[in-house]
């Protein structure tokens, strides 16, 4: 089963984090990525740049209208997207858990183009 692990993070938490703690947390991320690469479960891993770099685009009367920055009042913003292919949802949760101390982690199954006849 393929899942995305969506990591939501509060940029303020990261900006104020002591360097040693930041290194520790990054170490957890890196170890996990290495483990998933070696196990053949990792499909891809992407970190997102700071939310202030976001452009929001909406089509208004056929014309794209672009605004700076993310919408919404949420303090936590999408910061990372991992795609994994693993045995079960339990395993996907196990994969996401170690990085969920400061961040909120969502596990979502990816839609598949296969299907059983009913």
């Amino acid at each position, binding site marked *: 089963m393929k899942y995305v692990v969506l990591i939501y993070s509060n940029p303020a938490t990261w900006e104020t984090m002591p360097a040693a703690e930041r290194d520790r947390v990054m170490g957890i991320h890196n170890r996990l990525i290495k483990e998933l690469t070696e196990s053949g479960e990792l499909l891809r891993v992407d970190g997102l740049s700071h939310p202030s770099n976001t452009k929001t685009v909406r089509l208004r009367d056929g014309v794209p209208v672009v605004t700076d920055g993310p919408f919404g009042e949420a303090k936590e913003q999408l910061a990372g997207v991992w795609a994994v292919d693993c045995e079960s949802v339990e395993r996907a949760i196990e994969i996401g858990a170690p990085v969920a101390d400061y961040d909120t982690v969502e596990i979502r199954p990816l839609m598949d183009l*296969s299907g059983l*006849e009913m």
Partner: protein
Amino acid sequence: MTSPPGVDGLLRELAPQALGVLARRYGQFDACEDAVQEALLAAAVQWPEGGVPENPRAWLITVASRRLTDEYRGDSARRRREAAVAALLAPEAANAPSPDEELATDEDDTLTLLFLCCHPSLSPASQVALTLRAVGGLTTTQIARAFLVPEATMAQRISRAKASIKSSGARFTLPPEDERAARLGVVLHVLYLVFNEGYTASSGPDLQRTDLTTEAIRIARDLHRLLPDDGEVAGLLALMLLTDARRPARSRADGSLVPLADQDRALWDQAAIREGVALVSETLARAPIGPYQVQAAIAAVHDEAAMAEQTDWPQIVVLYELLTSISPNPMVTLNQAVAVAMVRGPRAGLAVLEPLDADERLTEHHRLHAVRAHLLEMAGDREAARASFRVAARLTSSAPEQRYLEGRAAQLSDDVRVGSAAPAP
């Protein structure tokens, strides 16, 4: 691979034979597997242009053996030179095995390879990947494409699988007699996984994946030839043939699913059905009963009905009861409920589903809700049926199934609206 089907088919057939010879001669399964894979790639490039050598099997063994020796020496310049020489060499090269060696061991080799690739120390995903490469002769690129994962991910699964086999200390021999049955069970499960991965793929851009179905059937056929007396091997082969026979009818050109009852049965592959029916009939008559044989028997009953209305549902109910008694499984119960509903009515089918509501894992599974919706619709409870189809559509992660389930729900809404506008009958 872009080589013609002739060469491709030949290479896939020869792959496990060449690997068997090398693994027996040199041990070092992981290194031998790499060497054979390189030889296969070389053949795929050279044979379509220069012609197939007179003894293609010996050619592969020779080239692979040289790769292996060069690997040991770590001499890359020499490797390049010799690869070029090997390509020019006469096929009956010095390293070719004697005819006796070939005949005596080929069959055991394929079996030994299957057991090794499906070693219990590997994850199912790794067992599948390694089986397709070492026994099926597929390239890592082909396997990665079929499973829709990056090539690096698939390459990692394969090398990890080989490392696990190495560290488990498993050797290139058949497992001991007392472990044989359990290990064969794993092999059959791996082939079943490969088959399903290909079979459930819809048409269109996924056509590549149906290759997996063909490959699973080919390996199962080999296995049946090697173990003709095993009822479950025959059962699995029959199940694959009888299921795959319906493939041309099970989805439309746009990838949408066609349920069994609505399929154009003229499109079914009658040759595959005849072969599957003959296999399962012959096996049920003599071998101890097992779950693959019963599932094959159920598929045979469906396939033998020229029209959906002619399906022998009472027979299917009996077979599901048998299957539940030998191999209880909530997914089997779901299918059983549908069969019961066809014989004793939808309420009886819904009663079969009731115990499943206590199973928390199943209440999150779309198929329970899809089956309930179908039975509720049969019972005339359109409102509840529509609600259950909606739940099922939300829960599935299969795009074609979601589309189908949403369609069923929408149809019920339309009917409800039409029904309420029309005068009472």
